[in-house]
């Protein structure tokens, strides 16, 4: 007690853990590098527990896959790469705590991670205070590369605007003008809904109703009763994770998907996996999909990934983790430094090469707002699908076509003096 932290080190805690019989649980030893070189450290904060865990696990797997690949090929500028993962539990508070740990104890050089928007915003603010490069892997809120953008923050996943733009046209043209929204009640959902409504109004459509569902809503029947009463042509679901799964199941149980076109912005392979067959319906956008027969390198990537994680196909989230780690590697090599400002400058305009991009075109981190111009994969769920064939991509739309022009994002990057 005189020495609250000094007497602790990881190994001691491990021993203590073993003593209480949890040795078997304490898995995942940190990667070791035999070389005498000091490693370059990337801290990753992603949910391992909590409702966001499934998505977090995918991102972590993707990042670890990249870490192993990079180290196998000689590291970054001859130095090993070390990825240190902490559980942010999808909570901004916990995420900040863990970031503080990583900075002060592990002395990380770069920070990546976040599955949800709230954690992403909190980490971005934290990284800005600590002069740290932060690559957001999976928080979609527009403002992260919009009005709340920071000189040190980049984002690999898309903005909500890009997500909504991805399949708006399809839904609108195919199914009709009157829309109803069921939206998750936090930044991601709000942003998505606002973006859809803007596009809907521009196209001359009408919002006939909407409901904000808090995260963790289990029973959507009361919302669905209202949906039936308002008789929209399109029911737009802007939910995430378990909420999306629950709502889609209940829609199919009520038979609503037979009468009203159901669609929305983002769908994730993780969500489709959690759905029974009857609930595989609707028009959605994926941010990346493993099945791209015409795109080079994708098949090899999927094969290698499956070799490391048997039976688990890479998802868009895995790719975010993968691409974010690689982006840092490429930027460091371009800057020939790990100094934050230099790496930031090198990352601006950085084009992901085809073997990393794993999609058609040349996605780049836009210099003006630090947003990656990744492609969107609109399509529909396959009603009779079996894992991993759950989604039919109807088009691959280059991100630069969908994203708001830099002048309209509201982002003005101010660099430190």
């Amino acid at each position, binding site marked *: 007690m005189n020495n609250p932290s000094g007497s602790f080190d990881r190994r001691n805690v491990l021993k203590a853990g073993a003593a209480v019989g949890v040795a078997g649980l304490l898995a995942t030893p940190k990667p070791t590098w035999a070389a005498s070189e000091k490693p370059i450290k990337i801290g990753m904060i992603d949910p391992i527990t909590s409702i966001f865990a499934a998505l*977090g696990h995918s991102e972590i797997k993707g990042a670890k896959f990249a870490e192993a690949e990079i180290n196998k090929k000689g590291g970054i500028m001859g130095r090993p790469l070390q990825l240190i993962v902490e559980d942010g539990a999808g909570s901004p508070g916990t995420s900040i705590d863990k970031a503080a740990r990583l900075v002060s104890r592990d002395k990380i050089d770069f920070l990546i991670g976040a599955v949800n928007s709230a954690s992403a915003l909190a980490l971005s603010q934290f990284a800005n205070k600590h002069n740290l490069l932060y690559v957001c892997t999976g928080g979609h809120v527009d403002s992260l590369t919009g009005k709340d953008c920071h000189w040190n923050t980049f984002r690999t996943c898309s903005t909500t605007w890009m997500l909504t733009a991805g399949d708006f046209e399809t839904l609108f043209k195919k199914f009709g003008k009157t829309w109803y929204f069921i939206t998750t009640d936090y930044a991601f959902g709000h942003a998505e809904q606002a973006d859809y409504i803007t596009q809907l109004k521009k196209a001359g459509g009408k919002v006939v109703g909407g409901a904000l569902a808090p995260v963790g809503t289990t029973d959507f029947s*009361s919302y669905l009763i209202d949906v039936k*009463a308002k008789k929209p042509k399109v029911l737009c679901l802007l939910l995430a994770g378990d909420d999306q799964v629950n709502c889609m199941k209940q829609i199919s149980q*009520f038979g609503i998907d037979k009468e009203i076109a159901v669609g929305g912005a983002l769908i994730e392979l993780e969500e489709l996996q959690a759905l029974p067959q009857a609930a595989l319906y609707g028009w959605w956008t994926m941010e990346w999909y493993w099945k791209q027969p015409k795109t080079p390198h994708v098949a090899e990537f999927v094969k290698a990934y499956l070799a490391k994680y048997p039976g688990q196909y890479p998802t868009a989230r895995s790719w975010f983790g993968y691409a974010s780690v690689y982006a840092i590697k490429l930027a460091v090599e371009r800057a020939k430094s790990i100094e934050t400002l230099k790496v930031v400058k090198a990352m601006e305009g950085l084009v992901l090469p085809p073997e990393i991009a794993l999609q058609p075109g040349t996605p780049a981190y836009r210099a003006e707002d630090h947003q990656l111009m990744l492609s969107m994969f609109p399509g529909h769920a396959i009603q009779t699908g079996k894992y991993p064939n759950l989604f039919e991509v109807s088009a691959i739309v280059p991100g630069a076509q969908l994203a708001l022009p830099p002048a309209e994002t509201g982002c003005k990057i101010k660099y430190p003096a």
Partner: protein
Amino acid sequence: MGLILLFNAFNGLIQGAFYALMALGLALILGLNNTINFAQGAFMALAAYFAFTLVPYTGFWGALIAAPLLAGVIGFAVETVLVRRLYSRKDPIYTLLLTFGLALIIQDMIRTIWGAQGKPLAIPGFLNHPLSNTYFFLTGYRLFVVAVALIGTGALFAVLRFTRIGIRIRAGNADLETISALGVNIYLLRTANFIIGIVFAGVAGILAAGQLGLNPTMGDALIMPAFVAIVVGGVGSLVGSLLGGLIIGLASGITTAFFPAASEVVIYVIMGIMLVVRPRGLLGQEGLFE
């Protein structure tokens, strides 16, 4: 508006039946084991995952029976190895923290064994449709849930009324010292009661999973309405818990028709009003020195 109100009211009652089913298991354990079982939600999830694993071998119906019993076996172990040691401590904080910790452990185990990825629980196809187009929210499955809730509750009350162990459980609820003086083995009685409570949780968990799907954190969202149902219905009264579940379900349903944003908060508001007007709840007994 009238029709929507009616829809929502019915829908609320269906939801309420489900809350009641969860609340009953919790109330049983609260009564005789004098334990606020925070792990009740985790046991629900555990039984649902057992069912998920069993369905390929036993089908849905077999799993619906076997999985709660398996959860009951775990409950038996938990009661005899852990909870039992704490009965002699008068302060309820110990069982409360114990079950709180257990909830964390069980949830973490589920995540480790079955993965964080959500999973669907297949339910028989014929339950998976609305019964009529007008009353579309009356799906076969939801009615089935209500039926199970009714049968389960009926069975519980029959057991409590007519079997020896049931009569003893009721007597023990009222006055544990006296029945212990009458030579009833209260250790055995409490174990049996705990198991019954967990089996109830298991059934509720599987039913929930059929509707919502499985994920490791599913128990967290389910346990709070059950608490509120108990407080509203009257702590210490099983019938009260049943009524409490129905009332908050109904209230939340009706509120949705007018002010959907308040549909969760309203159950706490009702509870608040109840506490001010009638602190012992609908059917709770008033004790001078409880």
